[in-house]
């Protein structure tokens, strides 16, 4: 037996709009079943997962803190994906951005100036962009597959960070802990409002997403991205270069991932350590698709996935379930988004094929 996907003649527009919400609903239902199976009351578990965090100021700030990198990276990735460039390595670009940005407060820690922070942010973007330049170069000039190269570079970045904080950048006063020295106050990203920890990173994220939305909707550059994503040949006819688009989209998403990295390190952690991301660069891929590759949708999707992080921590405490529950929810969500999209575009057919020669021989 074989399963065949057959393209629907008229996929429903209504359902394509509803698809992310359907996926959310299905994720909640599947999550409830999962809680029931491990012996927790699904209603109260879902309540503390999805509702409780929205009810107090502290966790709203946490959501904003976690949404910031997701939105920044997701918005950059949406540009890549729309132009048919599949950058999967944002996690690595995030780390490299954090490292490049940290050069100022770690290596030049004696230098005190209001320029420190802006310089860090710029370095962060450059670091992320340069790291994304590697798969961009390989794709544009060597014809390699950017999915593989960008993904593999993630592991290199993670190990490089690990080596840095254990070796050359380890703080002299950290009793051999693998961390850099704490950033000086002027190297810390200021808080957004007085009521809590959420920092300027969230403002960067919203600004970037709105900016990219404007670009996609109104400018020739956005049009170029759309056209090249749909047909390279038509793009060539329009005078657009797909090679330049590889560079543009990869550097842009790399820079935004790098900015997310340095913002996270400077605003939330305050130093470098072996692990600086709970997988933001990968979760942002879910964010990008859940937001329909539309930067405004990505703001909403980023907030929702941030909620899964915060809610995951909450149920971990109140119900003492594993910390993997967040990952499970994110995985379910991606699974349902992609399956909803697929089932809206295609219908499934089971094909029971005749088994080769033996039955043919027997039939006559």
């Amino acid at each position: 037996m074989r399963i065949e996907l057959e393209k629907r003649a008229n996929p429903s527009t209504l359902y394509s709009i509803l698809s992310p919400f359907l996926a959310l609903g299905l994720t909640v239902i599947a999550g409830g079943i999962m809680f029931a199976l491990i012996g927790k009351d699904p209603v109260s578990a879902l309540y503390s997962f999805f509702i409780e965090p929205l009810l107090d100021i502290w966790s709203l700030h946490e959501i904003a803190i976690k949404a910031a990198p997701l939105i920044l990276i997701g918005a950059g990735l949406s540009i890549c994906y729309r132009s048919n460039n599949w950058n999967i390595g944002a996690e690595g670009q995030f780390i490299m951005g954090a490292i490049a940005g940290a050069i100022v407060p770690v290596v030049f820690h004696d230098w005190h100036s209001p320029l420190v922070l802006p310089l860090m942010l710029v370095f962060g973007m450059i670091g992320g962009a340069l790291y994304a330049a590697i798969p961009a170069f390989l794709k544009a000039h060597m014809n390699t597959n950017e999915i593989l190269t960008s993904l593999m570079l993630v592991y290199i970045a993670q190990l490089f960070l690990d080596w840095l904080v254990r070796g050359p950048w380890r703080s002299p006063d950290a009793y051999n802990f693998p961390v850099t020295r704490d950033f000086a106050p002027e190297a810390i990203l200021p808080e957004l409002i007085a009521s809590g920890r959420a920092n300027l990173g969230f403002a960067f994220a919203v600004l970037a997403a709105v900016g990219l939305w404007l670009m996609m909707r109104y400018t020739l550059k956005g049009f170029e991205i759309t056209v090249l994503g749909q047909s390279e040949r038509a793009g060539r006819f329009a005078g657009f270069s797909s090679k330049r688009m590889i560079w543009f989209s990869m550097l842009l998403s790399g820079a935004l991932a790098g900015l997310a990295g340095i913002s996270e390190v400077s605003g939330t952690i305050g130093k470098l350590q072996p692990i600086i991301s709970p997988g933001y660069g990968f979760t942002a891929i879910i964010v990008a698709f859940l937001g329909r590759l539309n930067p405004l949708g990505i703001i909403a999707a980023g907030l929702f996935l941030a909620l899964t992080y915060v809610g995951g921590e909450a149920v971990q405490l109140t119900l003492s379930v594993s910390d993997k529950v967040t990952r499970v929810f994110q995985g379910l969500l991606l699974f349902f988004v992609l399956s909803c999209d697929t089932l809206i575009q295609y219908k499934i057919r089971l094909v029971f094929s005749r088994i080769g020669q033996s039955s043919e021989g027997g039939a006559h």
Partner: protein
Amino acid sequence: MSAVGASGGSPLLAVRSLTKLFGSFAACNAIDLDIQPGEIHALLGENGAGKSTLVKMLFGVLAPTSGQILWKGEPVRIPSPGAARRLGIGMVFQHFSLFEALTVAENIALSLSPGISLSKVAEEASRLSHLYGLPLDPKAHVADLSVGERQRIEIVRALLQNPELIILDEPTSVLTPQEADRLFETLAKLKAEGRSVLYISHRLEEVQRICDRATVLRHGKVTGACDPRQETPASLARMMVGSDVASVSAAGTNTKGDVLLEARHLSVPARTPFAVALKNVCLKVRGGEVLAIAGVAGNGQGELFDALSGEYPVPDAGAVSIRGKAAGNLGITARRLMGAGFVPEERHGHAAVPALPLSDNLVLARNQSDRKTFLAGGVLGVIRHAVVRIASKRISETMDVRKSGENPAAGSLSGGNLQKYIVGRELDRQPAVLIVNQPTWGVDAGAASRIRQALVDLAKAGSAVLVISQDLDEIFEVATEIAVISEGRLSDAYPAHELTREKIGLLMGGMYGKTEGEVAHAH
């Protein structure tokens, strides 16, 4: 209930008040049609009449809004192409559905039931293609094949299913006369075997030659049925369009201007193993001239277009010049800014992005040449959608583009109407040099004469026009000069009135010695 005109016996396929709505627009409106076993039945109608929509419903690609399909007298539902094939219906689409990265055999295997080995498919395909006179190399990659060759794959693919009814949507619009003749032999063979053919074409002569009956559609309705052999092309055209078709008044009296487009010893190596290399192509087009390049598909027409348009520039700047300036190494945008306009052969995914609305497809071709009008905000490049829409509407009106809605996706237009739009898109800016590859592929008689007249008028107004075409009728209608391309070499250009079809045939065959002699002479 039984149709009066039907020649006895029960029809193989019958259609009863079949309707297809797109929104509130009726692309097919209560259509009745009978196809007898063993007949070749023509489906005629101008662009956008609903022919493709009708046959897509018969092949399970589109779901009818209402109405009935009867197969051998039984009501059937055809929910998918697979279901149509199982019934015994095969189809060759107007726009092909092939995977470019795969080989011919792989593409064919994809549409067959699984479990048949690739070598068997290849064997069977080449047997059929020889039997029916449609030469094909099963190992060739589709990306490297010309439009004509791609179509053969589709035909062989349909034949492999051993269908009782074969639907061909404009099969000959991309074939040379010789290739078309062979196809007609194939069709005659199929008919002799008792199979039926539903045949869509805009070429009325061939309909008269091979079809037993014809049904005419207009604005989604059946407006008549006839025996095409009792009609003349003119009377058929009148049935389709509802009025007489204007004949093109040639560009004979043009005054010759400066050389606006020139290729000097243009040589381009083949980009892919199956592409054609251009060898020492020289041509000159003056203002007021229409140079037509005749030739069998796959002899370098696409490559010549790519080199002249600048989609693939050449290192030698002097190899192409536009309005006297060297342009060989410049890209397509720079050449547009020098006053040239281009219409490629393939509409979907080259001249237009099917999923984008028409207005966006206007920006596609004119984002730099009309930068001042279409863009605002300097370097930001904000697209003025309102202005673009007005321009797009103007083009649709001038070219009489029929469409559902104000600004629909390009892919929803019928083939001929999209062609009118993409030609109109260039004419609208009155380019000094216009290069067109297959200007009227799949365009109905009325619209074709409109497009040809527009090309002639553009030349009359002083522009240089280069038309690459396989259609000799078209060439004699528009050309002031004619050259022939064969295996990447271009013959000298001759004044159109000095040439006949026979002479062009000779040029296609015996020109090598001559060209090479001349090259030797030139150096």
